[in-house]
């Protein structure tokens, strides 16, 4: 146990912890300033997540797409690239999945599998564009990704309004085939037993598998090793004979697959795709991925747990608004503050360094005492 504690990199754990704490403290101050009770508010938030099995199921349901967009951002991060294009990749992946869900007729499981694979492939293409432009022309991936987010938005809206409008509400797609569902036999029964009536479905297992695949590619394969090498030092990687350009393009494209799958799972779960207004609808899931990836230090395990935190905030917000009269937007404030604090890690680094130094000194003293 001591060895395990000694192996933990305290700096990497402390900065996210302090960021979360600071964000909640500021959130509490804002709640106080607006004349509400923060303890009551956070209590309502907590019971809106853990209060009963239904709430917990909804919490996991909201976490699924955030895990996947978090992985999408984290994967590119490891190659030193910033994937702000997750919203667009998610939208395109979702659109392609819904199109297949409407027009293709297949047996149940096969149909859903095809939808998810196609969604991932669409995300691959949408991520590959900024990747290849970065590799070929040294064009900044952030600017291209932002432009592609809006291109995706208008493409998705055009497609919904013109080709698959819902006759009752043209701002939504029409109903998909009944075979387009994530209610997988056996797993559905287990989930229904654990979390009765909630919308949680097989997507949570896909998200967990995605985390494992992510960690495997990054940590255990030559390809992942090369990606990390390119991220840490492109010139060094080039000198060692790695194909830097190919790795940059592929890294963005694979990041796009995670976001595309996120879109597919999200739209299958909802049973439709909506006309997106931009930033306020499902695009927010893509931006949440940035906070999740950063908070989770761009590792598979880290992304999983940070997504649980952010998903929890979103899931509990409604109860907080209902029972403590604190507007649900406070969770947006808290999650953006977490992002801001994690990005400004330098603020806590000095503090963390001092703390680590003290620990090391203490350990040395103990060793000296033992050897005496």
């Amino acid at each position: 146990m001591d060895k395990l504690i000694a192996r933990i990199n305290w700096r990497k754990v402390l900065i996210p912890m302090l960021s979360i704490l600071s964000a909640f403290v500021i959130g509490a101050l804002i709640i106080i300033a607006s004349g509400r009770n923060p303890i009551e508010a956070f209590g309502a938030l907590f019971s809106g997540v853990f209060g009963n099995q239904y709430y917990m199921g909804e919490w996991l349901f909201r976490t699924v797409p955030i895990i996947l967009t978090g992985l999408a951002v984290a994967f590119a991060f490891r190659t030193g690239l910033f994937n702000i294009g997750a919203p667009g990749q998610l939208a395109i992946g979702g659109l392609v999945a819904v199109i297949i869900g409407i027009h293709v007729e297949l047996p149940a499981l096969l149909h859903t599998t095809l939808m998810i694979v196609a969604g991932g492939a669409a995300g691959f293409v949408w991520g590959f564009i900024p990747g290849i432009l970065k590799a070929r022309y040294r064009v900044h991936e952030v600017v291209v990704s932002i432009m592609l987010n809006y291109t995706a938005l208008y493409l998705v809206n055009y497609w919904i309004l013109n080709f698959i409008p819902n006759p009752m509400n043209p701002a939504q797609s029409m109903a998909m085939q009944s075979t387009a569902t994530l209610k997988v036999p056996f797993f559905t029964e287990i989930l229904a037993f654990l979390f009765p009536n909630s919308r949680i479905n097989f997507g949570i297992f896909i998200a967990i598998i995605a985390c494992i695949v992510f960690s495997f590619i990054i940590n255990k394969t030559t390809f992942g090793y090369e990606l990390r090498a390119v991220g840490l030092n492109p010139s060094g990687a080039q000198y060692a004979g790695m194909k830097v350009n190919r790795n940059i393009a592929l890294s963005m494209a694979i990041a796009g697959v995670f976001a595309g799958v996120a879109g597919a799972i999200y739209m299958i779960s909802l049973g439709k795709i909506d006309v997106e207004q931009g930033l306020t609808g499902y695009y927010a899931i893509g931006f949440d991925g940035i906070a999740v990836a950063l908070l989770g230090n761009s590792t598979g395990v880290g992304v999983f747990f940070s997504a649980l935190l952010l998903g929890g905030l979103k899931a509990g917000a409604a109860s907080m608004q209902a029972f403590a009269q604190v507007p649900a937007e406070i969770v947006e404030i808290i999650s953006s503050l977490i992002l801001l604090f994690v990005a400004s890690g330098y603020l806590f680094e000095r503090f963390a360094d001092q703390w680590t130094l003290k620990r090391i000194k203490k350990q040395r003293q103990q060793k000296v005492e033992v050897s005496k």
Partner: protein
Amino acid sequence: MDIMGLIINVLLFASPLIIVAMGGLFSERSGVVNIGLEGLMIVGAFVTTATSLILQDMGLSFLVSVLIGIGLSVIAGAVFSLIHAYASISLRANQTISGIALNMLALGFTMYLTQIIFQGKETESIGIGQNAASFLIPGLKDIPVIGGLFDWRVMLVAVVVVVTWYVIYKRPFGLRLRACGEHPGAADSMGINVAKMRYQAVMISGMLAAVGGALQMLAFAGKFAPYTINGAGFMALAILVFGQWRPFSVMTAGLFFGLLRVIGVTGNSLFPGVPIPEQVYFALPYIFVVVALVLFSRNAMAPKALGIPYDKSSR
């Protein structure tokens, strides 16, 4: 549609974007990426709307209340941009991430306040419909045909563009600002306080973006809601890149993108009979930016030190 109406619509659409892009120009020319323009616009739109509604309740006239609102939004924009400045300059945070956090924070914070103050997801309209004429400059507005052009919002943006060009290229301040964006180490060795320059630049961008947000609100929604700004800040960023960080090119890009947008909204008045959906016109500006970036990539005009935190010890 008559040509004059088209021009006025293009100006009304483009002017908020151009003034925001000018703000972005200051920030980026000093070496700080500002993705947070969207959030700063949201803050400006909120402060102007809230101030105007409250002051009109107290009996002030529409125009006066809006002008005071814009004045306050300038202060709010400067204060809010300090968050981005402190994180990205003093704490050396990743500028892109800090900007995104600013966008999320701005939307969350203003929506929170909207619900606290106005008890709803959006405010009521500030009453532009019956007061639209109050934006036109008295005397000049009666000139036949071109009278509609004398809108003080358009005039304000035109002045800002000229002043930006003058400050950036003709004043010592602009020279120092550009030096910080191209080679902060060299600027520092010549006695320029890089951090201070960048702080000033980011605050200017905050002020201009907030005014842009107010103008955007006045030109379209006429109230504050989650969709009042709706991506206009990112559009301004696109204009900035398409205009290659030069004031007059940025203005031209803004007018061009504004034209595409207006054609999209008003239908195919330009090419009657050709079935081009409005979404194509909406998406074209963004596609143009990507194409332009690729074409310009050989001799890109982007400031050399853009996005790199300045660390004195690594000089």
